[in-house]
């Protein structure tokens, strides 16, 4: 049995700002396909000069961790402060890390 697709699929939108080096997740929208999702992201999420580059990703393609497993996944890192590289001096020549 096939069910008719009534709603356009959902897309996650990532925008890179003028200063930023990475695309940041800023929201989602409905669109018929990738090209349309890009145009709509431009209209919905960059009206106030938020960005200079846009990525869109089908929401269905994202595999997410289970919120119920938050404890076992993330809590064990809480007491391992030595993993933060805050004890090193980074030479200026290295630039952005």
């Amino acid at each position, binding site marked *: 049995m096939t069910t008719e697709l009534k709603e356009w699929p959902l897309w996650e939108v990532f925008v890179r700002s003028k200063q930023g080096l990475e695309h940041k997740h800023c929201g989602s929208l*409905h669109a018929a396909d990738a*090209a349309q999702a890009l*145009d709509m992201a431009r209209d*919905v999420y960059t009206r106030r000069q938020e960005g200079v580059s846009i990525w869109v990703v089908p929401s269905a393609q994202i595999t997410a961790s289970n919120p119920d497993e938050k404890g076992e996944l993330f809590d064990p890192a809480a007491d391992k402060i030595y993993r933060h590289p805050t004890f090193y001096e980074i030479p200026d020549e290295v630039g952005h890390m």
Partner: protein
Amino acid sequence: MSTATDYLLHLADNALVLGQRNAEWCGHGPILEEDIALSNVSLDLIGQARLLYQLVASLQGGDATEDKLAYFRDTGEFRNYTLLELPHSGPLSGYAHASLDYGTTIVRNFLYSALMALLWEALEKSANADLAAIASKSLKEVRYHLRHSRDWLVRLGDGTDESHARTQAALDHLMPYTQEFWTGSPAEAAAVAAGIGVDLQTLKADWDGIVDAALTEATLKRPLLEGYVSEGKKGLHSEHLGFLLAEMQSLARAHPNGNW
């Protein structure tokens, strides 16, 4: 009226009237994302109109202002193409129950944006430096309007039987009004002679190319043109402009020196 102001008012009125028309979709768009997209188009057009009215007001001097030009001129003084003042409803009675027909909106935005993408580019070389600067800014905006409307034209034309029929009906209804693009007016002829304006005949082949390519992709049939040629740019308008202006101007006229 000097040569420049008459021509500039034609460009300004085009932008304002279509901006006002498209703004009718604000809050009524077919989906949220399109509602915002079309409002963006409107704001671009109203922004273009403001720059052009400000330029006219500075040329006229005295107590001329952009608001006076937009809100205190009457139907016969407006110089926009008739195409741009028509309502968003299609000509088919079966479909006209929807007072806002998105196919009509898209076809009109496409036909006009295709012209303005060419005209603003040509006007970047205008002898009037202010107009050339406005053209540069507007060109970027209209290129996106063309991309947006062309994308939807293809989606609707090459879509379902219903969307194809409505888009073809809108095209059959609106295309004859584009004949006005290619018939001259005294204001345009004077502006061309002064080096301020552009002879649209020089853009027609490119416009035909843009339109034909999009219509082919959209599986739409280009209607044959004949019959009445509208004369909105000479101040002879359809009955629709009066209603549009009444809605747009009433607030400013009720509070003539209001500030907000």
